[in-house]
């Protein structure tokens, strides 16, 4: 079972690495233009969203913290990267470090304040923080730094990573980012610490009563998921060559929630599949039905929640379990 899972993962990674070449060969178009280039871009965005979804899964699916402020980290990563690249001309490695540091500080601050309350109160406190950042990003006082409601346009991405000029490179960097993030979160969720996260999700009072300082573990989960979301936000800003207030909007948090629930909360692979599903289905519906596609998407979402309450991966797992039970 375990080995099989790994085989599937490695197979998928190799397939994704070969994908641009295969598409170029199939269509007969050069790898750096036309259809191959377009689909490299589509998948690069899926990889970035998948990391964002996985970061939310660590918080919500594993530790059971329903935060409505996750967009804050995504946006903070985007703006930190954008401002440092555009206004301070920092090298990329330093920008990555700065994004991590900013996310740790934000995670500690927001965690230390919001994790003192539980349930719907925590949801409201985190939402309030995210909304504050959203308002701040649109504030005209900082227009020269953030671009206010227009967003921070024209982020100078290093030439070797340019999503327009070096699309294949960007594709591989996004893929590596996604694989590395998945590996990281998987290690954490299977570690003694990750088991405590699950215990907190299942029954926080009991976890405390058997001796865990649950506040510290929740703080750890929030910081870790915040760092990952901020890095995803940074990658998103590099892809778009801009950072805009929409990254900090509530809809961005809802998006993480949708991807996690559709794919299956607490499964890691589920939210990644959810990210791919939402992004690709959104594209498909948009080309087929125009700008009213979210209506159709809403219907699809209702159907999934009604018929697959544990998401794609949850449904898949119970199907496997049922088949095994039948065989036995």
């Amino acid at each position, binding site marked *: 079972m375990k080995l099989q899972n790994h085989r599937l993962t490695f197979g998928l990674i190799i397939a994704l690495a070969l994908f641009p070449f295969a598409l170029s060969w199939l269509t007969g178009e050069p790898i750096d233009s036309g259809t191959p280039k377009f689909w490299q871009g589509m998948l690069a965005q899926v990889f970035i969203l998948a990391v964002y979804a996985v970061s939310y899964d660590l918080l919500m699916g594993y530790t059971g913290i329903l935060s409505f402020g996750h967009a804050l980290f995504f946006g903070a990563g985007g703006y930190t990267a954008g401002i440092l690249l555009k206004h301070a001309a920092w090298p990329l490695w330093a920008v990555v470090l700065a994004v991590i540091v900013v996310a740790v500080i934000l995670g500690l601050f927001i965690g230390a304040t919001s994790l003192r309350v539980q349930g719907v109160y925590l949801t409201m406190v985190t939402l309030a923080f995210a909304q504050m950042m959203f308002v701040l990003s649109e504030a005209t006082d900082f227009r020269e730094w953030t671009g206010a409601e227009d967003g921070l346009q024209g982020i100078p991405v290093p030439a070797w990573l340019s999503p327009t000029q070096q699309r294949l490179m960007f594709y591989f960097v996004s893929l590596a980012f996604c694989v590395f993030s998945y590996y990281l979160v998987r290690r954490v969720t299977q570690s*003694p610490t990750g*088991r405590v996260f699950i*215990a907190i999700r*299942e029954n926080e*009072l009991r976890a405390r*009563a058997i001796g865990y300082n649950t506040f510290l573990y929740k703080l750890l989960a929030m910081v870790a998921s915040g760092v990952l979301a901020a890095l995803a936000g940074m990658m998103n800003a590099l892809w778009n060559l801009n950072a805009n207030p929409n990254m900090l909007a509530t809809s961005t948090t809802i998006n993480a929630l949708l991807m996690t629930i559709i794919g299956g909360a607490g499964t890691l692979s589920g939210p990644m599949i959810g990210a791919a599903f939402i992004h690709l289905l959104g594209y498909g519906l948009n080309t087929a039905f125009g700008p009213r596609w979210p209506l159709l998407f809403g219907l699809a979402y209702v159907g999934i929640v009604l018929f697959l309450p544990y998401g794609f991966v949850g449904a898949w797992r119970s199907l496997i379990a049922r088949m095994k039970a039948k065989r036995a």
Partner: protein
Amino acid sequence: MPISRYREVGKICTHMTNILETVALTRDFGAFRAVDGVNLQVRQGSLHSLIGPNGAGKTTLFNCISAVLKPTAGRVRYDGRDITNMPLHRMTGLGIGRSFQITNIFNNISVIENVRLAAQARYPKQSYQFWRHADDLPEYEARAAQALAMVGLAGRERQIAALLPHGDKRKLELAILLAGDPKLLLLDEPTAGMATEQVPELMETIERIRADGNRTILLVEHNMHVVMRFSDRISVLHQGRILAEGKPDEIRSNDEVQRAYLGGGF
């Protein structure tokens, strides 16, 4: 010497062997005083039962002792140190294990993982190793399996805890406590909701747990047969105060207790 002075001397003499002691412990909920100046002494190695009618304050007293609630006034002493207002998560480290009146387990994970988590919790630093696979620390799993065998749940390790029958869930709670290797167990109605014929078995398990590690047990229980048969000492709580305290025979023959609680049936 007046009799009251003899009592004082007696208290001092037994003091050294009291593993748990509350001093004028009080807890208010708004204007309502649920626990009212309770002085409780639990002797090392004893099985001490706390009985009383519904609403007498038994669970509130438990919650104050085990740090689930902060007492309004009074102190809690355990093993010679003041543990009043200590955070809940430090209780296991001190050797205090607590079970709950309403079944309180980790529902959607396996039986063994429920107990393994408790074994792991005994070593807090180990639990911050986020780069190691939890299965690479087999000593906790071994310890968990041992605890499960002790309560009679061997063979059920891989089941999902939520799917266990009620009686087995109560046993699982005991195993979770046991994995933390407590010196003092606070059991809040461990037999609640169990089928009558399962109760003796569970009580025998509790007795075995006590004998096995020279442990002390403080028990809240409604089943009078169980209380009378297994207790070394009984404290009767009534309207937040201790009404009487003594050996089962003494409690049975206490007129005041009969009037307030036992209704003449014992």
